[in-house]
């Protein structure tokens, strides 16, 4: 009897908490759907204009400055803040490299943009025989369960 009363109280408390939370959701801020101002060409430094911390992600804008280190490690940011990425980048910007089925090596498709960081530049057909042994997990991230129709031509 006492157990069922405790459970009932817990459920009621949980419901009250959920109701209170729902009432507060409308007061939580939204990130803009797109960047409100025209952006400069090339890598951006968010903290040049934004000094404060963001309302939506509650992280400092400076953490998202597009330094060389940021570009090299962007997977850590995309995993928790992709909603911030899409305020400035179309999803197709990511899909230039990260996709399910790639028709053309990204560096060939974007051969007129050597400034963009693109995987597998040059004769990677030879290089992959070394790099693949060295760090196969780095291959797996893109080619493990998708985007591997060209891999299976030889690797079976």
């Amino acid at each position, binding site marked *: 009897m006492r157990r069922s009363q405790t459970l009932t109280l817990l459920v009621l408390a949980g419901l009250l908490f959920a109701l209170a939370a729902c009432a507060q959701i*409308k007061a*939580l801020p939204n990130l803009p759907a797109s960047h409100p101002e025209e*952006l400069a060409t090339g890598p951006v430094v968010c903290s040049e204009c934004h000094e404060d911390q963001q309302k939506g992600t509650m992280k400092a804008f400076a953490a998202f400055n597009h330094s060389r280190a940021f570009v090299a490690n962007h997977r850590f940011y995309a995993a*928790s803040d992709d909603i911030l990425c899409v305020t400035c980048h179309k999803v197709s910007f990511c899909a230039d490299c990260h996709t399910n089925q790639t028709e053309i090596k990204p560096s060939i498709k974007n*051969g007129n943009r050597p400034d963009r960081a693109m995987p597998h530049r040059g004769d990677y057909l030879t290089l992959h025989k070394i790099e693949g042994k060295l760090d196969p997990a780095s291959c797996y991230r893109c080619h*493990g369960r998708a985007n591997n129709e060209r891999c299976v031509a030889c690797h079976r």
Partner: protein
Amino acid sequence: MKYAVRLLFPALCLAAFPACVLADASVDSTTLLRIYQDNRSGSPSQTFAPVTQFLGVDVDKLGDGNLSAHLLGWGRLDLADQSFNDDHAAGSLSYGYLQYRFGAANAQARAGRFFIHEGIVNEQLDGVSARTDLPYGFGVSAFGGATVHTAHIPGENSDGKGDGIFGGRANYRYGGLLELGLSGVYETKAPALADTSFAGRFGDHRLVGVDIFLSPFRMLQLSGHTSFNTASQGVAEDCYLLQLKPVEKLTLSADFNEYHDRDIFYSSALFATLLNGNNLNAQSRTFGASASYNLNDQVDISLDTKHYTRDIGKADRFGADLRYTLPDARLRAGLSYHYLLTSPEFAIIPSSSASGSFYEMRGYAMRDTKNYFASLDIIDYIFKKDVEGRGYALEATGSLGYHLTPSLALSGDLSYGSNPQYANELKGLFRLSYAMKIAGKGDSK
């Protein structure tokens, strides 16, 4: 589901075009014509001329202003010999979905084909997803639907994926100091594979994991995640990055990655076969460090190193990058040098006298003006020991283009290479790019 999506989203996009006039919209189209010839001795001469069309459409502010439609896909037609597989034509829908943004809490819902990047989860599915921030720093997201199947593994009748996939992430944020996330993905039972050598190394795709962002001071930042494979009952990977910004223009970083081969490759029918012999407990580790410094607004320089440890051997990579950009980005250039030093086991054909070591050197420059754009990119790999009788792999690509209108550009690339595959490799490409945008304010790249 897959069939429905194939029908639904082209129809949606066609229906969305008239709405482009009223809504914010953008269309990105790139048409590529590649021309190349394979003239290796011992093989019949082949000429390839595939035309590939990439199309991206984004239509915002539909309906009540919070609905948007997004699509990206490509199609290829071979004008000469078959360039790949058995068909002269191929295509793929990368994504095509409707998205509704609610008025608060970064809440949004998606339906269609899309990618999910949440914590340890990186998937593509045909289905639905929703996310929202919650009071007191909490947040939650969830997704579910059908997996997007890919190429069949030769000798099997599937790609090794289950048919349904579900998952999500819950997170807690405390100011700008801390974020903790708990995420997971559950895929329905993986198909049985005919090849019995998969036993013990291949199974269902089921992962849970935690991720962290910690920045107790503005100059210090720790990010990373650990994932656990519930199907193989082992830790799949640990990936952590520590960044230090002692002064505004200097970023120091150190990263640690550890992978347990069986557990990370467990749900990949391709990679499960690549496990080293029967050593299913093999693991790999990398330690990396880098320093990047902005000398001024035009020049930045970075140094990096990485140490690799695998059950078969060890390797080290060192290098440096230098980048130059004019303030208006009309001129961009870069130089890089890297050296990979490996133990003989990483050679393409391992032996006590073999080597997998090589130097990598790259230089590029590009110029973009109102009327024309041009670039030159040269990359050379110099092998410490010859690979198939050749000591290097060189590729030089030149590109020249003209802005026909602010939205329409025509360009051509010509590349020459010499490498262990081809003594002489000459390739040409024509590119017609169209980027149309109808929007009141704002920008996106």
